[in-house]
Each structure stands twice: as C-alpha cells, then as structure tokens.
C-alpha cells in the first residue's frame, strides 16, 4: 500500500521531528510531564506514520526489527543495571544514590520557578532513558508485527 507522493514526503519530513520530540519528552522526563514511556511511545509513532504512508517493505528496509529488539533488550538492561548500581553504592536496589553525590547529576530539582536544569534528579534521567529506548524498541516491534498484515492484503 503506497500513498501519494505528497503524503510520503510529508511523512518523511515529520519522521525525524517525531524522534526529536520523543527524545525531548524522554530527556525532560524528570522535569516536565512525560517520561520514558511517553517519549518512547511518541518516537514509535514515527514508525506508525511511515508504515501508514509507505509500503511495508520500504519501511522495514529503514527500521530493522533486529535493531529494535536490541534497543528493547538494551533499555531493559540499562534499567536493571541502574537498579543494581544502588547496591554497589551501599544502598538498596533502585536507590537514587547519584542524586546528592555525583558531579553531573549533583542537585535535586529546585523548588519554585527554575529554568529546567537537566542535570538534576540523579538516577532518574538514566532510568527514563532506559525505559524510553525500551518502549521505542518494544512498540516498534509490535507495530511492525501487527501491520505486517498490510503486506499480505496487497497481493
């Protein structure tokens, strides 16, 4: 199933913006509404957009299932390892040991109006990132599997 050139071009044009906006939601997860799951879902929408606008094989050429599965596994592993890192800092599983200690994620988020410093909240941005790429991978794989029916109907 192939749509008109206008639709295809627009979809191509919007695809990177989907990814960037999703990444913004992921990265700002600890400051503004949103977070790993929401951002990952937004990024996966990009795939849905391409799938609707283009032929199935065209999309799988660009977005590979294997890479997405790797994304999923990597995200889950980042999440688990971040959880484990608490143990080695002498704290319980999932403890936010980075928050007051490290150089990069030094501070807690300031009360009241603030410019939205990203280097706050310790371990949380890392967890958001892990969840983000996990959801990106997982939802994209689901989309690719489910919409593979499009290919068959064409015949």
């Amino acid at each position, binding site marked *: 199933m192939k749509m008109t050139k206008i639709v295809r071009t627009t979809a191509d044009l919007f695809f990177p913006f989907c990814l960037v906006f999703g990444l913004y939601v992921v990265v700002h997860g600890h400051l503004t509404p949103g977070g790993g799951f929401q951002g990952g879902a937004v990024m996966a929408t990009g795939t849905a957009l391409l799938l609707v606008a283009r032929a199935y094989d065209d999309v799988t050429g660009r977005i590979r299932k294997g890479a997405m*599965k*790797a994304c*999923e*596994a990597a995200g*889950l*592993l980042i999440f*688990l390892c971040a*959880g*484990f890192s*608490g*143990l080695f800092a002498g*704290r*319980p*599983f*999932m*403890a*936010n040991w980075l928050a007051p200690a490290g150089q990069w994620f030094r501070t807690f988020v300031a009360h009241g109006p603030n410019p939205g410093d990203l280097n706050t909240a310790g371990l949380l941005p890392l967890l958001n990132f892990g969840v983000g790429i996990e959801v990106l991978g997982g939802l994209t794989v689901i989309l690719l599997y489910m919409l593979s029916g499009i290919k068959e109907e064409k015949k």
Partner: protein
Amino acid sequence: MMDTFVMRHLPALLIAVPLFAAFLMPIVGNAGRVARNAWVLLGALATSAVGLALAWKVLATGTVLYVFGAAAAHLPLPMDSGGIPIRIVFQVDALSALMVVIASLSSLGITIYSLAAESRQSGLETFYAMLFLLVAGVLGMVSTGDLFNFFVFLEISSLAGAALVAYRVDNGVAVEAGLKYALLSTLGALAVLTAIGILVGQYDALNLATLASRLQFTTLDKIALVLLAVPLAMKCGAVPMHFWTPDAYTTAPSSVTAFLVVSSQASLYGLFRILFTLYGHLLQFSWATFGWFLIVVGVLSMFVGVTMAIPQKDVKRLMAYHAVSQTGYMLLGVGVGLAVLGNADALATYGRTAMAGGLFHIINHAMYKGLLFLTAGAVFYRAGTRNLNKLGGLGHDMPWTMVFFMIGALAIAGVPPFNGFASKLLIYESVFRFSPFLSIVAMIVSILTLASFVKVFHSMFLGPRRAEFAAVREVPAPMLAGMALLAVFVVAAGLAPRPFVDHLIQPAVDALVDRAGYIAAILGGS
C-alpha cells in the same frame, strides 16, 4: 554468612535475577543452542538459590523487610517518608517464605525438564524469557508488601502465563485458550485495580500493613473486599470460576502447566493475605461467615473437580480438573481455620492444625501435581497423543516415567507414605472435629481421585506393547532429572513430614494468624 552482601539484598535479587535472565535471553540466544541452555540453567539455579536462601533467612531470623530505593533497606519508615511507607516494601514473612520455597523448587524442576522437552520447538528465546517473567511475577506476588505492587506482579504473571499458554501458535486451540486466559485475567486484574483505587482514595496508602491498620470497614471497603476476593478466587481456579483451568492447563506445554499450578497458588496466597491480614480484625463478627464461604467454595471445588475429571479422555484435561479438586482441600483447611479464628480454644485444638494441613497441601500439591503434569508431558513427548483411549502399554518402554507417575498418582490420592497423605491426614483429623460431614466428603473425594488415577495408570502404562508405539523410548535425561527433583520432595515429605510441618508450615500458620505482627513489622509498636 547472615550479613554478607548477597544475604542483605536477597529480596531485590529474588526479582532482579529472573528478570535479568529474561532480558538477556534474546542476546544470549544469538550465541547458539548450548550457550542458551547454559544461560537458562544458570538463571534457574540462581533464582532457586536466592529463593531458598531468602526462605532460610526468614525462617531463621523472622520477617525480612526490603525497602526499594530508600537510604537503608530495612527501615520502612525512613526520615523522609513522613510516617507512611511511601516506597515499595517487600515484606517476606514465614507465609511468603513457604510460597517462595514452592516457586523456587518447582521452577528449577520445570526449567531442567523443559531444556529437553521443548528442544524441538522454535522461538525458544521467547519461551524461556516468558518462563522467567512468569517466575519473577509469582515470586513478586508472594513477597511484596504493597497492594499495587501485588497487582503489577499479578499482571506480569498473567501476561507471561497467557503468552506461554498460547506458545504453540501453530495450533489454533492453544491461542484460543491463551486468549481466554488473558481475557479473564485482565478482567480480574481490572477488578483488583478498582479495589485498590477505592482503598487508596480513602486511606492514602498502598502498603498492606498501613492499609490494614487504617481500614474502617465502610461500605466502600466491603465492595473493595469483594472486588479483591472474587478475581483472586477465580485465578486460583475455585469452583464456580474454574472454567478457564482445563483449557489453559491442557493446551500449555506441560512444563508451563506445572508452573501455572504454582501461579494459581500465588493467587491463593493473595486471597489468604487479604482475608487474614488486610481485613482480618474487621471480619471478627463474621469470621465464621467468611470461613464458611471458603469452606463451601472448597468443598464445591473438591466435588465438582473430581466428578468432572473422571469422564475426561485427555489426560492433561483430567489432571487439570483434579487440580481444581485439590485446590478445594487447601480452601477447606484454611477456611476451617478462618471460621474458628475468634474461638481461641477451637483454634488451638484443631483450627491451627486445619490451616497447617491446608498450607502443607499447597506445597505438596505444587510438587505432585507438577510431577503428574510433567509425566503427562513426557508421555505426549514420546507417544504424540494425550488421548487415554489411544494410549497403552507404555510401561514397558518408559519405566522411569511410569514410576514417577505412580509416585504422583499415589500422592494425589492421599495414599501413605507420600506427601499427599501427610497433608490430607492433617485436614481429615482437624476438619472432623469441626464438622464430621466435611471430613467424610474430603475422604470420598480422595477415594474418587484414587479411582480416577488407577484408571489413567491402567490405560497409559499397562497392557501389551502396541504396534503404533514401537518407536517409544524413555524420555531424555534432563526431563527425568526435572521429574526426579519433584519426586524426591514428594517422597521425602511423605516419609518424614514432621520436620517440614514444624519448620516450614507452622511458622507460616503463625504468620497467617498474627495480623498484629505483620503490621508491627512495618509501623513499629505492637
């Protein structure tokens, strides 16, 4: 030993190890068959080791608390929490320890078994990943002290369970059963979630102990109790909500079925936890009513289960109905305990014994029913059919499977010296003093169970060799090893039930009755 790094973080490892094993599975799977099998074995061994070590620690030193993400793992009320345990707390008491032991032993046995039994299938990475997720879900359900966390693990185990039921996708019936299981589980989980919403909206707490100490038993709380109890009773396969069990148990791969039994029992644990710990003292004017509710459901399950089982032709379907029937014994034993909870004399003389019988039956059932499902899987593996009318004469070529089947069948029928007899004897004795009629029903059901399994044994293993099964040989060693692991427990707990009852079951009974202790472990005081 008691305070090493690993020992301190056991509750976190209990969940993290199987999850880790599951998440790395797609990556390890690329490295080939041997690497994958080694990884699976390693994951299963590590999970069981952590589970058993945790249970040992709980039984040796009392309730183990683990606060996720706090400054210190053992303080449920740190300075920054404002008097409410806002973080997720794992609270592993003796009852949880019993369930953890069951899940650890059973998961190890079935994983070893499936290494050989599933080797002919494709998509094994997903299969093992789902199996580890199921194990993690069950372990989480029984060890969490947080109501919402319980819901999450319930959903994890349901989803993984449904995916495993439907694992043999090439066969439409399996997907149908998986769909049925997933649909019912989701509906049940939605009811549980609504109940959680009702409780949180009123009391601003998710922690079981905190909720238990704040509960007022308003009308909304009563609605919440129904919304919690009914789905959990459904998930443990009690009549009249047992209709999903035969389908799911029959179509799932046998090793998965053996663990679905444990997963049902985790729901049973949830039911007991909610009736005894969460709502315990609020029911004090109606303990007898709720006790009788459990008893009636239990007796119905026993009777309906066994009568439905007898005419079945599919051996796994028959066993699934027997699983419903055996769940009835657990409900009966614990129900008698709940009914006499207000009467100190009766509780001391027979109530505790009845509960001990019920809880002992949980672990025994997980072992012998797991064993029976594994033998059914072994027969299917070689003979290619589960139809009792077509099977026959397999005893000549599959002697070990036959022996294991005999052990399981005699145990489920309550024949000495196997573990089924030990727990059923506790139930008979104590229930007889509560109500002789119920005890007699329980014995009749046992006799019917024996009759049913004699028939199965006869039609599967006895008789002359058949031409169509000429190629049948004994199953591969890993399958035998998995069955042997469960069989050893069945025999050991039957020959020497005393140590099991004294050191594993009695503490669990105490934990179930001791509601104040459960709350005090979190909130302090007594």
